[in-house]
């Protein structure tokens, strides 16, 4: 197994086309991640169709380049204009922008790049180490366990989503219903097709994801006031003093470990990881009152966590087929287009692909660091991209990208429809990420429930098998805890404790 992985790993690394596409992905990812109004998820969703004509290695190099770099790119706008470019950089702005206002913009950007590299490498190491182990455990799973794990993934997303857990759950149920549209995979009976041949093949994940993550954000931006911001243009010193930098490595280690572990929890997302990492550093600090005034710890902790989340989020995706966050949900769409079903059997049947993912992520981390450090003086120019050109360009990309999936205008109409649906859902405070998760996990959940009932002829089997029972108990706890906690607070008259900046799976505009 190891020689096979190493062969495929090094083959990917010495492919000049693959490295070139990774570099393109990194450059595009940094630029789009830096632009307010374009989140990492949106970047990946609208550029995903470009990967369809590529082979699997090139596609992974390109997409993981965008994935990793856009996560780092969000720190640029957080530091230079006090607006997070991505949800994961919401916390970086709290100290990054004050550092920039004190004339340390260059140093803040360098800290962000180096912390991102550190976190990215640690997340990668956790992925490489633990993914095969988890896959080995997952091989023991049968249909009851798969059904329970899938339900667990959906419930975690509902728990982790901003705002109402209940509304997130409803969004997930809608996603599961959308997954039922079209031909049933077991009996080939068509459901909810409204008499349309197009709907018999189901709703494709890519147009839906482009619509809810791409077009919906364009609509929100058009409705909004069009953010005006002042870019800090003066970049003086780039490299921070060594005496200051060398004492920050424990901060980077802690942030990275938190980020990787949170990222590995299905559906948790980087926004939670960065908030926890920042809060932890503040708690451990001898001078917690300095956080928020422009200290390097306030940049290093969230940025290392942010990028470690990338490796962490790939763990449940690769081993269980469950998205680690909204971005890996979009990535699963890409894998499905390329004929790959993520899950433990990748580690048995497609070790070459596993190696390609490892190589792609490592390449993306290295290139992001290099480009990030070289580009510190020039990033302010990215932020001068006119909004009118940006939003129009994104809308056209959404249209063309959805068309490119199957050369079908029906997919474009699906994209437009779900763009409107995504926009409307956000207006009524209903998170959209669970809708996408539901669409991806629906077939998995249904097949495994029905397969279980076909084999075992009863529902009790779900609570008789220990792993399945454990997953269901955790699911129940995740869903019942928020209303219980709310009831307790009301009953005792206690105020809700203040929390760090709330996570959002709905990208900020």
């Amino acid at each position, binding site marked *: 197994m190891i020689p096979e992985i190493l062969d495929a790993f090094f083959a990917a690394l010495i492919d000049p086309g693959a490295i070139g596409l990774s570099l393109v992905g990194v450059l595009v990812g940094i630029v789009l991640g830096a632009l307010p109004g374009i989140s990492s998820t949106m970047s990946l969703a609208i550029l995903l169709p470009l990967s369809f004509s590529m082979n699997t290695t090139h596609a992974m190099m390109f997409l993981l380049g965008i994935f990793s770099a856009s996560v780092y790119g969000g720190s640029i706008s957080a530091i230079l204009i006090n607006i997070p470019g991505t949800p994961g950089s919401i916390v970086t702005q709290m100290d990054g922008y004050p550092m920039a206002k004190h004339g340390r913009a260059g140093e803040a950007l360098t800290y962000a790049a180096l912390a991102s590299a550190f976190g990215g490498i640690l997340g990668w190491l956790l992925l490489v180490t633990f993914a095969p182990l988890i896959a080995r455990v997952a091989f023991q799973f049968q249909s009851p366990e798969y059904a329970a794990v899938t339900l667990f993934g959906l419930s975690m997303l509902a728990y982790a989503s901003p705002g109402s857990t209940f509304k997130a759950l409803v969004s997930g149920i809608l996603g599961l219903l959308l997954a039922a549209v079209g031909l049933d995979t077991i009996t080939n009976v068509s459901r909810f097709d409204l008499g349309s041949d197009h709907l018999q093949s189901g709703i494709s994940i890519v147009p839906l994801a482009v619509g809810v993550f791409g077009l919906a954000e364009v*609509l929100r931006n058009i409705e909004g006031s069009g953010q005006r911001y002042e870019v800090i243009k003066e970049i003086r010193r780039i490299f921070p003093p060594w005496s200051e930098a060398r004492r920050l490595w424990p901060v980077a280690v802690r942030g990275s470990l938190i980020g990787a572990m949170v990222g590995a929890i299905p559906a948790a997302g980087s926004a939670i990881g960065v908030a926890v990492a920042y809060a932890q550093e503040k708690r451990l600090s001898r001078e917690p009152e300095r956080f928020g005034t422009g200290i390097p710890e306030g940049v290093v902790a969230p940025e290392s966590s942010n990028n470690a989340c990338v490796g962490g989020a790939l763990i449940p995706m690769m081993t269980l087929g469950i998205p680690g966050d909204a971005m890996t949900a979009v990535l699963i769409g890409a894998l499905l287009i390329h004929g790959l079903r993520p899950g433990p059997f990748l580690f048995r049947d497609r070790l070459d692909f596993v190696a390609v993912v490892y190589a792609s992520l490592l390449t993306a981390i290295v290139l992001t660091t290099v480009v990030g450090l070289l580009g510190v003086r020039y990033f302010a120019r990215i932020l001068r991209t006119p909004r009118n*050109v940006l939003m129009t360009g994104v809308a056209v990309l959404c249209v063309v990208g959805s068309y490119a999936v199957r050369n079908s205008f029906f997919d474009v109409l699906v994209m437009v429809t779900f763009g409107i649906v995504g926009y409307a859902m956000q207006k009524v405070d209903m998170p959209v990420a669970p809708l996408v998760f539901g669409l991806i996990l629906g077939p998995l959940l249904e097949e495994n429930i029905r397969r279980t009932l076909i084999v075992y002829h009863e529902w009790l089997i779900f609570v008789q098998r220990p792993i399945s029972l454990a997953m269901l108990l955790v699911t129940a706890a995740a869903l019942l805890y928020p209303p219980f906690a709310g009831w307790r607070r009301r009953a005792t008259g206690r105020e809700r404790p203040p929390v760090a900046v709330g996570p959002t799976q709905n990208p900020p505009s």
Partner: protein
Amino acid sequence: MSKAKKDLLTGLVLVGVTLAGFWSLRTNETIATFDFGTDPGPALFPRLLLSALGVSSLAVLGAAGWRLRRAVEPRRSASARPRGRAWWVLSFVATLTAYVFAMPAVGFLPATLTFSVFWTVLLRYQDVKRFEARSILRSVLAAAALTGAIYLLFVTGVRVPLP
């Protein structure tokens, strides 16, 4: 829109989806007549989901009704309401839909160029609240460049046969 009204609207839509879903299953002849043996059949999962959705929609409506009855939600001041922003969104959606339908008829380049020019100029107006000849010209050139770049990227790069 107040939270109560948002919940009311949400609840009504969810009730509509639930009823439409159950109606679709009921009128599906194959599901109604076929014996699937030991397989619980393709209707089980949707029925479970629709039942959950139905209960949820009633809960949302209940919460909305409770809030409306207690209603002491502060009125937003006129200055806080976005003026005419909904029309921008509706216009964008309408023109986008027209663009999608026009593309197979007139071709990608004319349709995209028209859409891009229209919205780069309008969105610029939305930012600065006036039309300026120089910025209109820049917007037109940017839209043309954007259209050309996307065409080259997808036709030459990704090899998608655009109309």
